[in-house]
């Protein structure tokens, strides 16, 4: 086990035990780009957004694919959720929206994809959160 691996484990345990499982949020600008609010450095180290591709289906429905990279040297898990908003900034609820758990290999880049629940959606928000914290059974 390298010093880097040990250091990353120690940092992770320290952050988790301190109750720092905050959510990292990536928001589309509506022009193909995105802005990010990263409040959880440990999580960003194992799941950070690398690239975003937006497109439209034939009926005008928005779809998005987001490349997420892990800089970790060990396999990791994280949770993610897509939220959708219309042009007025109103949130569009989806009947099937739920937090999903995802596995990522060391140094791997995976793609998360979603299709907007309605044709009126024009903006997406991707929320990433760490998997269940130790020591807090109801977090």
């Amino acid at each position, binding site marked *: 086990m390298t010093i880097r691996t040990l250091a990353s484990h120690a940092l992770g345990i320290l952050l988790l035990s301190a109750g720092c499982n905050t959510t990292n949020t990536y928001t589309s600008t509506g022009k193909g780009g995105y802005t990010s609010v990263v409040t959880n450095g440990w999580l960003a180290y194992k799941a950070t957004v690398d690239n975003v591709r937006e497109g439209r*289906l034939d*009926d005008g429905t928005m779809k998005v694919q987001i490349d997420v990279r892990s800089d970790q040297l060990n396999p990791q898990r994280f949770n993610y959720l897509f939220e959708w908003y219309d042009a007025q900034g109103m949130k569009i609820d*989806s009947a099937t929206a*739920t937090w999903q758990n995802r596995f990522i290999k060391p140094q791997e880049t995976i793609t998360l994809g979603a299709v907007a629940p309605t044709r009126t959606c024009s903006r997406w928000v991707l929320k990433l959160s760490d998997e*269940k914290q130790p020591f807090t*059974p109801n977090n």
Partner: protein
Amino acid sequence: MHRTAITIPVILALVAGCQNARYQDPQGTALIVSLNKVDIQDFASAADAMVNSMVETGVLSKAAHQPALLGISKVENRTDTQFDTDELIKKIRVALLKGGRAQVTQQLTLGNVKEDPLGDQANQMKRFQDGTDRQPIELPDFTLSGKILFDRTKAGSTRQVAYIFQMSLVDTSNNRVVWEDEKTIVKQGNQNQVGF
């Protein structure tokens, strides 16, 4: 010293065992993950994958009716646990309806079982009163069918269960399967746990 060493674990065990009931976000990450059943988050995840896949192919937007008219066919639960398949199908229906992509018809149902018998009777009476009861009824553009299968295995004390959700859409104008997809959810561990 010796008394403290015994007392602290006992107090911790009591505190851990005395959790009061509380509400949880049904979309959240604090739900129970079970190794012996399909959890609500599994149904939501499978429904999400199916709706995304179905919408992405664009088959519904090419239907004669807009929104497309959908008939619900056979959806089988072939797992070892009992649940209502509406836990999956209703989510798919709601997502398609709210997204303006499909509506479910009551005119033609499996075994002629009407979900809303009063609605069906009212429709028949209206058609009679309007004199349109001899006109052909509106048939669905597509029928939706599916199966939920499972696979259970074990290695030492680690248990694994896989739930396989399979769905198909048949175009009623030519009886062809125009969309199909499969989503597998695998859960592994020694026991059920709170949160993921």
